[in-house]
C-alpha cells in the first residue's frame, strides 16, 4: 500500500525539472530525512564517543531542517499556512541547546577518557549488572 503511494508521490517530483521548478517544502523535508537517518546511523554505528556526538548533531540538524522548511513562506504556495516565526525560533533554540548539549557531552567524554583512556563507548560498561 505504502510503496505505490510513495512512487506516486515521487514520480512527479522526478518528472519535474529541478532546474526550473521552484523548491517546495518537500525538498527540504527529504534533505532533513537524509540528515536524520545519517545521524541515527551514526549514533548506532560509531563506537567512538565523538562519533556518537556527531550523530546527535546530525539528527538535530535534520529536525532543524524541517522546522525551517515549515516556517519558510518561500517554500509554500502563496497564502498557504506556515509555522512562521515559531519555526525559526524553535530552530534557534535547537541550535543553542545542541551547543549546550555538545559542551556537556564533551565534558563527559573527557572524563570518560580520563578514566578509561579511550573514547570507545563499548567500554563504558562499568554499570553492567
Amino acid at each position: 500500500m505504502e510503496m505505490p503511494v510513495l512512487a506516486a508521490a515521487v514520480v512527479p517530483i522526478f518528472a519535474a525539472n529541478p532546474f526550473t521548478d521552484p523548491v517546495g517544502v518537500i525538498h527540504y523535508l527529504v534533505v532533513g530525512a537524509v540528515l536524520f537517518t545519517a545521524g541515527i546511523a551514526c549514533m548506532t554505528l560509531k563506537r567512538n564517543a565523538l562519533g556518537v556526538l556527531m550523530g546527535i548533531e546530525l539528527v538535530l540538524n535534520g529536525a532543524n531542517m524541517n522546522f525551517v522548511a515549515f516556517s519558510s513562506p518561500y517554500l509554500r504556495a502563496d497564502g498557504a499556512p506556515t509555522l512562521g516565526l515559531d519555526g525559526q525560533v524553535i530552530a534557534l533554540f535547537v541550535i543553542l541547546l545542541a551547543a549546550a548539549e555538545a559542551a556537556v557531552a564533551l565534558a563527559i567524554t573527557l572524563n570518560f577518557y580520563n578514566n578509561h583512556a579511550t573514547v570507545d563507548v563499548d567500554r563504558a560498561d562499568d554499570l553492567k549488572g
Partner: protein
Amino acid sequence: MEIFHVGNTVMGGSALMLDTLLPFAASVPSQHVSLPFGAVVLAGINWHSVLFLLFAALTCAFAIGVVAADNVVRMALYLVFSLGSAAGLFFLAGAEFIGAMQLMIYVGGTLVLLVFGVMLTAQAPFVSIKPSSSDKTLAAVAGASLLALLLTAVFSVDAWLAPGAGVVPPPSATPLGMALVGVRVDDSPVGAPSTGRSGYMLPFEIVSVHLLVVLVGAAYLARAKRRKTPRAIDALASSEPFAGRAAVSGAVQVTGARAAGGSSSALVGGGR
C-alpha cells in the same frame, strides 16, 4: 523613517557587483521574481532551485560521509561541511539569521569536536575505533528502512508536495529579534495581524540561564584537578630570598598554559 531604497541589490544576486560599476548595465529593463538569496528565475532556469540542489546534495553527501568515515577528524570535517551546506539551505529558505547562527554556533561547536578528536587520538595520529563490517551492514539496512519510512511519511502529505510560490517579503532578522525580546511584529500565518500571540521572552531567558548552567556544569565536569607535585622551582623556594617571587611567576606561567591548552578551549567553544 530611514529607508534605503537599495532594493535592487536583492535581485541581481552576486552579479550585482559589476553592475554597480558599469553604468550601461542599468539600461535594459527585465522582469524577475524576487527570491531569497538573490536568486532569480530567468529564461527558465530557477537559480534558487539550482542552488538548493547544490547545497542539498552537499549536505546529504557529507552527512553520509560522516557515517562512512572511520577517522574522527575526517568525520568532524565532513560534519562541518554538512552543517555548513545546511546553513546554505537555511539561507535559501529565507532564514538568514538561523543560517548565520548555524555557521557560528554549530560549526564553531564542531570545531571544538574536531580539536577534541585530534587531542584524544593524538597518541596514534590516525587511530580509529572501527565498527565491524556486520555492524555496518546492519546499520545500512536499518538506515535504509528508516529513510524509506521517513520518505513515505514525507510524501504522504499532499500540502507538502505543492511547490513554493517564491514571492514574499525579503527576509529580515528583525521580527525574530523582536520576538525574542517578547514583541511579535511578524505576520500571522494566514495574513491577519496576530495580536494575541506572545513573544519568546521567557524561553529566551530560560535558554540563556540554561546556557549559563551548562557553561558552569561543563567547566565543573572537565575542571582541572589540582595535585601537589614537587617541581624544580621548589629547590629555589627554600634557598633564596627572591625565590618566593620566582616561584609565583613560574606558577602563573604554568597554570596559564594549562588553561590555554586544554580546558579553556573546551569551555569557550562549548559554551558558545
